[in-house]
């Protein structure tokens, strides 16, 4: 896909205001150590990513529950694993 193509309507947000320091702090919670330079370099990518996340925030899931399901084996007569 060429750089010029943008089939999904981009939900370009204004600058989300997430600072490099905030990026470093959030990453640190997950045990990721980012330099200030790296966090700063990541900001443009994060802005685009936040745009996609805002697109899903704008949709109403109504009463649906998450799709993730726990499957437990049922050892019934018609289902032997």
């Amino acid at each position, binding site marked *: *896909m060429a750089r010029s193509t943008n089939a999904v309507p981009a939900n370009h947000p204004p600058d989300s205001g997430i600072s490099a320091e905030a990026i470093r702090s959030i*990453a640190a919670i997950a045990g*990721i150590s980012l330099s200030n330079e790296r966090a700063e370099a990541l900001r443009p990518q994060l802005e685009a990513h936040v745009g996609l996340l805002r697109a899903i925030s704008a949709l109403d899931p109504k009463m649906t529950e998450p799709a993730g399901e726990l499957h437990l084996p049922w050892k019934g007569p018609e289902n032997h694993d």
Partner: protein
Amino acid sequence: MTDSRVELCDLPLVEVASLLEKGAVSPVDVTESVLQRIEALEPNLNAFITLLPEEARRQASIAEREIRDGQYRGPLHGIPISVKDLFSMIGARTTAGSRILADWIPSENATVVDRLVEAGAILVGKTNMLEFAYASVHPDYGPALNPWDTTRSSSGSSSGSAVAVAVGMGYGSIGSDTGGSIRLPGAYCGIVAMKPTYGRVSRHGAIPVSWSCDHMGPMTRTVADCAALLGAIAGRDQRDSTSSHAPVPDYLSELDGDVSNLRIGIADTYLRENVDREVQLLIDKAIEQFTVMGATFETVPLPPPSEAVPALLAIITSEAAEYHLPALQTRPEDFSEPVRERLELGVLTPATSYIRAQRLRRQFIDRITAAMAGVDLLLMPTSPVVNTPLEDDLATSEEADPELLAAMINFTGPFDLCGFPALTLPCGFVEPGWPVGLQLVARPFEEHALLSAAWAYERAMDWHRRLPKAVTELV
């Protein structure tokens, strides 16, 4: 172009299987033909990470003896096949296209590898792929090159599999698809490639991108070959809790080629919006052809890609980041820069976004199920563009580029989100000889309907008989 100098390795899988069953050729001959093609083209195309010629020859000798002794196992017996390098294989390094796993040699087979071995297939190698199937080439391996034009991208992430199949370096390959990674390289390389229903093929032993979105599936040169390969790998696996108990049909024998009562759904958001004109023209011609064959078309209210792709990416980025977190914490410099960035974006994705995306996923499934209530299949392009220049492709970019990734998977990603089966097959070529892919989508576990419609279309056209430039230039 079609070429009269077709060699044994260029024939369809099912034709060679018939010759093998009758004893007209031996697995040793077939394997040598494929290995010769690999020797001739692999230096130019970079389709494999690991080749297994000696093991392939050993398996071929065993298959030859078994068939001669009347122990024919079925259509994959004695057939050279490859697997994407994210499938674990005992004794063969499994890198997933990464430096992180560059030296990893598994002690267990992936389920699909076990099933290929049980079916008597000859495993010729592990194919090149984008790093951890996550949209970028790792510089240690470089890209697999498009055999129709090596200046154009072969897409990804199952790029090596698509390239290998297109040029006769094996009769089929097994790939994986999380946002389009089977179908996009399949379309760019002019082959048939299927993402089956989620749960149809076991994921056990495949390095994951995203547990809830990963699909494993066959990549071949013809639809019948695809049916044969799917039949060998599909079915319940107790080692994958999400694999289905749904019975596995005999996909190959169920191909009937009758589309006279087929109802096909289309939607403008999947046909006209941001689609290259050349792609649109070929898709319109495919619609005409299906109509000539007796199918009917109706517009259906599909939820647009813009409501599915962001949710899919929220899920993928979160699950991928969690899987790779230990390596991201300890050796981040060993990831390629864009994959490292994507994983870091996953770490920064709120749990609330992930849960919202899973709720929207359930809603998307409900909506697409309702939209397909009156039709058997959906039809659309596999990719909105024909292909892209290699140097301007996301796979070779130095940045994560979330918006470009979203655009790339615009027509494929929605069906990873909902888990419905989808298949790409060639629907024509644009100058100067680049293939274009047509995508068909079916309801869950209706792969047989997908294959039958694709088979009918394929038989009416001759696109699958054309050989890539890389092959026709061999003299």
